[in-house]
């Protein structure tokens, strides 16, 4: 019973059509490692064609939310729909960019081979890699400014270059919904610019971008919507409405000094 009540937005039943059209709709999601929920009863509806930042303090469940939405980790409860249908049949419409620290970069492989992994669903078990596939992977590398690195061993890349290769792999999937986990964490300024340019281009083409983001100073420049989380959902909406001092205080608590908040370009509420 409790579960049914939680599958609502602050007690208000959700209008059905907003869910069915959303690229990613999450209802009553709870994920727990051990017996401490990392994400508790979260509802989220990401808008088609939007560019949304998921923000919140460390350990707020940002990455967990993303991974659960992708079925990478199994939730304790909750429902995920992608373009109104269960995730299972919609995976081809989603591309995921994991945190770059999540893999071993000494793995014996070249940059181009990593990008070619993005074509796995097309190739299947028996498909043969041909010149067209390679050309497409190279094109994706070119879009992130890494075409010259195609033949490099991945262990030779800097952190920013690793991140760009991961983005290129997602581009190769040619998806409609892009989910990125901290794409700007620990990257150099040139990489940050390259990545945001690519994301904004995708967004202009009508694709939906959802990124876990940690740098509050760039939220207003990079994104049009925010989703604030601290285990529970704090707020969700257009940057102009939801990126407010009150919401940030609610999400970060004492971890964000008032002085820091004053420096941000916040919505005028």
């Amino acid at each position: 019973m409790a579960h049914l009540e939680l599958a609502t937005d602050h007690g208000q039943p959700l209008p059905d059509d907003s869910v069915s059209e959303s690229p990613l709709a999450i209802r009553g999601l709870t994920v727990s490692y051990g017996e401490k929920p990392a994400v508790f009863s979260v509802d989220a509806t990401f808008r088609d064609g939007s560019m949304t930042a998921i923000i919140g303090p460390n350990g707020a469940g940002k990455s967990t939310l993303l991974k659960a939405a992708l079925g990478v980790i199994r939730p304790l409860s909750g429902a995920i729909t992608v373009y109104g249908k269960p995730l299972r049949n919609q995976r081809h419409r989603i591309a995921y960019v994991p945190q770059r620290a999540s893999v071993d970069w000494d793995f014996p492989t070249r940059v181009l081979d990593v990008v070619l992994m993005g074509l796995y669903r097309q190739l299947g078990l028996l498909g043969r890699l041909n010149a067209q596939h390679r050309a497409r992977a190279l094109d994706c590398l070119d879009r992130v400014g890494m075409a010259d690195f195609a033949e490099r061993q991945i262990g030779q890349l800097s952190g920013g270059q690793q991140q760009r290769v991961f983005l290129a792999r997602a581009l190769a999937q040619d998806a409609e919904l892009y989910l990125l986990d901290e794409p700007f964490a620990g990257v150099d300024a040139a990489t940050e610019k390259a990545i945001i340019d690519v994301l904004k281009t995708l967004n202009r083409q009508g694709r939906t971008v959802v990124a876990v983001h940690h740098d509050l100073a760039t939220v207003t420049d990079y994104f049009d919507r925010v989703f604030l989380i601290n285990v529970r959902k704090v707020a969700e909406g257009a940057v102009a409405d939801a990126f407010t001092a009150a919401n940030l205080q609610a999400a970060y608590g004492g971890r964000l000094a008032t002085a820091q908040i004053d420096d941000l370009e916040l919505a005028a509420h």
Partner: protein
Amino acid sequence: MFLEALTLQLGYNATLVAVGAALLGISAGVTGTFLFLRKRALVADAISHATLPGVGIAFIAMVALGGDGRNLAGLMLGSALSAWIGLLCVQAITRRTRLAEDSAIGAVLSAFFGFGVVLLTVIQNMQAGRQAGLDGLLLGSTAGMLMQDAVIIATGGALTLALVLLLRRPMTLVAFDADYARSIGVDPDRVDLMTMGLVLAVTVVGLKIVGLILIVALLIIPPVTARFWTERSERVVAYAGVIGGLSGFLGAAISASAPALPTGPIIVLVCFGLFVISLFFAPERGVLAAYLRHRQFQRKVHIRQGLLALAQGQPVYEPLTIRLLAREGLARPDGIPTEAGRARAARALRDEHRWQVVHRSPDYEEVSSLHDGLRDIETVLTPDQIAEIDDRIGGPREVPA
């Protein structure tokens, strides 16, 4: 004798064993590569030790049914079943408890192996004489290998190899990035289970030749050896197959060419020999290459530091620095710079000043990150840019050559 063995002229049994061992080596090396890439090499140990109870039970069952207890196909079936149960135990423990996989492997490996040894002892007392040879499956025993056994080994090896090649893409994907694999709909648990199934098949196929204790060596040493020679996973797979096959063939030939040399252990030793050679002499990742690279780097650092000290009129204390400078003809053994040394020192200092300008100037932001204290600025900037920097520094345009 050894040459005859190599060219398969040492009789029927030796030929069967050599061909079988080569095939086993290829499929073990190729299969083991994916275990190695997935960083789960130890699982092979659990699987192989967990075959032993199955061997004992299969023997007892076949005798009870009135058949020949030593039938290889029957023993392989029994060992496969018990290894599968062992594997499921490891997975259940890892998933349901907070124990790490290595602890689960340790527990399952020793419990199954202990149980297997008990069964073998029971068999030995149950029926004297006929059971001889079962303990040969521990370390392999090729003396009485039959054509029928060789055919089973060859078929099993070839099938395993074909399946590995078919599944290479999902297995590589999961080994590199399991989360991403799941996000595109490839279930890592299922892929892992298939990998383990293939490892199990290789283990069972290898019982007769190398035995269950040493099969781990043939699964793991070839990929580890291959990794020294390449940075591409598909080549690691291919090289591991070659290394495994070569070890199997050479090892079988060596053991056939001398009396009383056990085949399985010799194969493993040959394989280990190839590993040691690679460890030291591989061009990029080898120990020797790494040592030489380190020495060369150290030399560059010392000379640079020494030159900068000389340029600023400071004494050089470190013996290694003085020795290196002297060897290059840049300083006398007492640390006093030579004419050439003074010129090189001035150039080094000039280079240092130019880098400082680059660091301070926003125009050169991208170049600035290339500075590592050793790189000559003339290798990263055009002569025009350097002239522009020299203008900012001021002072004499010509650097003494």
